[in-house]
């Protein structure tokens, strides 16, 4: 599903963000990526989302060889995954419904399937009543659930979550990860970057620890110390 093979990334200013990182995440797995600030977690996600290219090594995601991915193929890769960000990244002038609808529109889905699927997914994340609200009218936790609904709506095989609990309170954070956990139980692969050790320990899933751009530890069903 996601395969890193001896991946290194050196930026144009000479910064080595990742150094010979290799790991594989199988279909249906739930993995946390942990590490201190500047360890290389964000670079790792940027590589998966094809925002950056590797300097060395190969990455395969959902059958796409990212080392040889052309600009035109990037939308197809991104449509095959759902992405959740720390800052939610909702379009402010679209309602909750429209934000989720947009993700389906880019896949050229029919209006009929959109009308069926969007309310269903909003119901799954507990926001059925908020469909007509705008993001600014929602709390941080609710906005993140909209982002999660948007990531889910196309039924992706992978969900990439970049510190999804970074901007919300602890109680809501637990709910968000719980939602991701439920989604994972339905067969979706989850890759979540976080620095909240409490959550990682609580859910006891695979932990990939990045330190100074290198793979420091890969613990199946593990936990990390504070």
């Amino acid at each position: 599903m996601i395969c890193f093979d001896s991946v290194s990334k050196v930026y144009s200013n000479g910064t080595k963000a990742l150094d010979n990182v290799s790991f594989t995440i199988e279909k249906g797995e739930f993995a946390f990526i942990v590490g201190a600030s500047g360890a290389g977690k964000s670079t790792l996600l940027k590589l998966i989302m094809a925002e950056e290219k590797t300097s060395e090594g190969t990455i395969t995601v959902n059958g796409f060889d990212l080392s040889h991915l052309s600009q035109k193929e990037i939308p197809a890769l991104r449509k095959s995954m759902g992405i959740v960000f720390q800052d939610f990244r909702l379009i402010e002038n679209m309602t909750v419904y429209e934000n989720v609808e947009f993700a389906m529109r880019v896949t050229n889905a029919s209006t009929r399937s959109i009308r069926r699927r969007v309310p269903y997914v909003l119901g799954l994340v507990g926001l059925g009543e908020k469909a007509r609200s705008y993001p600014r009218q929602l709390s941080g936790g609710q906005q993140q659930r909209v982002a999660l609904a948007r990531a889910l709506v196309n039924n992706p095989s992978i969900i990439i979550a970049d510190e999804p609990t970074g901007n919300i309170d602890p109680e809501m954070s637990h709910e968000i990860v719980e939602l991701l956990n439920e989604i994972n139980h339905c067969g979706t692969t989850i890759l979540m970057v976080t620095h909240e050790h409490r959550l990682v320990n609580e859910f006891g899933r695979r932990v990939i620890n990045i330190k100074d751009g290198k793979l420091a530890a890969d613990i199946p069903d593990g936990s990390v110390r504070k």
Partner: protein
Amino acid sequence: MRLGSFTYLLKQGAKNTYINKAMSIASVGVLTACLVIVGFSMLLSENIKSIIGFVQQQNEIIVYVDPSLSADGQSLLDKQIRALDNISSVEYTSKEEAFENQHEKLGELLDGYENEDIFPASYHLKMKDLSLIEDNVETISKLEGIYKVDAPTDVAEVMVKTEQTVTVAGSVVVIALLVVSLVIIMNTIKITVFSRRREINIMKYVGATNSFIRMPFLVEGMILGAVAATVSFLLVWYLYTQIYNGVANDMTSWLSGAVASLIPFKAIAWKLILAYLATGILVGGFGSLISTRKHLKV
């Protein structure tokens, strides 16, 4: 692309025009100001040319016919003059008519000269293109039965040079204004798109293709261009008509002929609205496409 997706993108473009009211108003304002200034410059240039054309029309070649020319010769000369190139109108005055005209002015001084050939028959010729007056005079002088040719060649030269200067200066001013307007409009659209770069960025992460993102921006740009074109047209219509009526109603008689040669708004209304719509829609649409390009590289 499905029809549903296409109509969705069209609706998004129209909706965004309303949602981003402040930037829409700014874009329409700038585009309108530019279109009105360019439009007025063109109208001014065209009107000056029209007035010069009218003044040129007042210049004529007067051809006096040799009084000793036979009737057959007169008939041949008449045909030759009427067949000349570059002549817009020919007015013939016979010997008798010439005498009558002068008799009216001079009265009894001419009594008793009725049967004398004092005044020759003449032709008053108006030209289509005043710059060719010398060629016309030369051709006419060579015809059989010509007594004399009077032509304001010096005045014609001045008029032709004035027209050429107005044409060149008018074109330079209009082109310069167009270039300045384009730069201002492009920058306004760039600012509009820049303020929405985050939106574009999000769309890219959701997997939208470049064309999918551009389409609503294209529609939005075209709508703003069309609105600016319509507002400009109405403004120019109102202002031009006010000026036209003002000049026409408050003009001394010696200039009334020149005023009559001003271009009435009705004569240019269709051309103006079509030119405005084409310019507004093209500038708005292409401006949006070009401005979004920079933010699509995510």
